[in-house]
């Protein structure tokens, strides 16, 4: 068992290294091919006050006059030492910006992830237990509609309903405006977290619900369920004893594998509610041409998605007793 896990981790570590290397080469090359002039982006509004000599000096200071491979190697070398450069818009090291932003994003994403998982799983079970009834149709129709709804539009609707119309929840930001950082209490943070988290989780419900419904419907048609029914087990006890064990792991795997969509959804939800997280930083970096921050965020999001996929793989390969037994037999 331990050897199995060690092998798994070793393989994944190698994969991660090659993946990060590839993503950094590709995104560096992309940015390099961009028609956006970094010197121009840096100068911004001071165009009139900066002469051509000064431009050349800035370019030389940043090493922009060097050939592409040399610049890449220099950047990669700094990256390996944990230095991602300095963000142009925040005037702080990229690592620090990402670290701070990650802390507020991770709460949002974790909450939304849990919400969507629990609600989707429950809805899937309800639909499968009453297959082809009105409740199944309702849940299915709801999921199909959700799957084609733009996430940010849901955010706008929720904001209109709960913030503008009913006035129950704040419109945006992660803390109340005009309050000192020490005086912000946990309740305030939670209140600001609710709407973005609900927006983000609504987008994630559909896949997990449809998947769970399908899996459980398959399980319910199997012989062992027929036998269990014949013994007189029925209703929730049947699902709990024979259904859940079979569907929990695939559902969890799917949920971990959806980290990519989660991150994408977080970008949109954070933008709608001006929630200061990683997603909003990504948009800002893209809009205002902050290349170091953008590169850092691309790598960071890749790492995030990789973590999710690896956990999904881990559950699938190692935690699932059937897969483990299968491996043992092959040996």
């Amino acid at each position, binding site marked *: 068992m331990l050897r199995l896990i060690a092998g798994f981790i070793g393989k994944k570590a190698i994969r991660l290294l090659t993946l990060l290397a590839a993503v950094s080469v590709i995104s560096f090359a992309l940015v390099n091919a961009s*028609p956006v002039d970094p010197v121009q982006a840096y100068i911004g509004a001071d165009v009139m006050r900066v002469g051509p000599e000064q431009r050349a000096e800035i370019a030389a200071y940043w090493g922009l006059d060097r050939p592409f491979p040399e610049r890449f190697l220099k950047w990669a070398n700094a990256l390996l030492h944990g230095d991602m450069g300095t963000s142009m818009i925040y005037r702080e090291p990229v690592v620090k910006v990402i670290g701070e932003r990650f802390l507020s994003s991770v709460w949002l994403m974790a909450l939304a992830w849990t919400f969507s998982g629990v609600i989707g799983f429950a809805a899937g079970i309800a639909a499968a237990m009453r297959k082809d009834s009105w409740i199944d149709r309702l849940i299915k129709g709801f999921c199909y509609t959700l799957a084609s709804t733009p996430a940010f539009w849901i955010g706008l609707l929720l904001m209109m309903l709960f913030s503008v119309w009913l006035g129950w929840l704040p419109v945006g930001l992660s803390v109340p405006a005009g309050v000192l950082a020490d005086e912000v209490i946990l309740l305030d943070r939670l209140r600001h977290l609710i709407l973005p988290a609900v927006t983000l989780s609504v987008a994630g419900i559909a896949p997990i619900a449809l998947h769970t419904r399908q899996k459980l419907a398959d399980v319910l048609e199997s012989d062992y369920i027929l036998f269990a029914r014949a013994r007189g087990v029925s209703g929730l006890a049947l699902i709990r004893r024979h259904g859940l064990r079979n569907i929990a792991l695939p559902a969890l795997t799917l949920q971990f594998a959806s980290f990519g969509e989660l991150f994408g959804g977080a970008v949109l939800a954070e*933008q709608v509610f001006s929630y200061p997280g990683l997603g909003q930083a990504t948009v800002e970096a*893209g809009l205002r041409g902050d290349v170091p921050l953008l590169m850092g965020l691309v790598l960071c*999001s890749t790492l995030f998605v990789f973590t999710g996929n690896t956990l999904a793989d881990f559950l699938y390969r190692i935690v699932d007793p059937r897969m483990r037994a299968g491996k043992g037999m092959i040996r």
Partner: protein
Amino acid sequence: MIRRHMLQAAGMNTGIPRWNGRIRTAISVSGAIALLAVIMLGSRLMGSEGLAVSLEERNMAPSPAHLFGTDWLGRDMLSRTVKGLALSIQVGLLGAACSTLIAAVMGLAAATLGRAADRCISWLIDVSLSVPHLVMLILIAFVCGGGMKGVAIGIMLTHWPSLARVVRAEALQLMSADFVLVSRKLGRSRMWIASRHLAPHIGPQLLVGFLMLFPHAVLHEAAITFLGLGMSPHQPAIGIILSESMRYLSTGMWWLAVFPGAGLLLAVWAFDRIGGHLRRLTDPGSVRL
């Protein structure tokens, strides 16, 4: 005649008319095509008078004269919505079509060009799938300097991997079919096999893949435009309309956001249904997915 009779008989049992998959597909396809035609024709016929600024008619709630209301410059929201949808659908079509083409070429190349090419392409697919779509779109839109070009290229370059994987699996399976093996022994070139033997077989897959990609492409176009990295603010794209409406929501002008978003939802949903129905017809094995 017989079919109608049977349908009626079936319908009488449950009280609801029950149609089989083919009829439902036909209905959903014709419905979606009608929707598309209405949007496209509407945006052509409407002209631009609805988009003109008329300050006397500012901030009007929905009424018979302006079904979707008007915005803070007195522009008619119905014409803006229809025009925006037409634009979004065009970009989505372009992006999804190119993505499908890339997926077909990549999938076929992986299956026919030997082990090394297969490894390379599979690895490329893995890499592309491990960066969130939206982050990649933001990066590409930034690199292209924004605008419609950036969005279209971004959608093209981010949506192909999952379909390419399907095409590759399908093509690899075909490569070991007898008729392909015979053809190879007869000395046919790889190009010939790919274009004559494999391509016709993966045609339906590509069509379905395209229809499944299309809704994603439209949604991603709207999202990236909403974030401010897509279309220029002068174009009446749905994303632009929604992001502008955000500034006016706190004044209670709900119609600015509700109707354009609902229009987008309807268009995407219609195409998603076609994709789902056609997939069931071409691939009965996936019926229960």
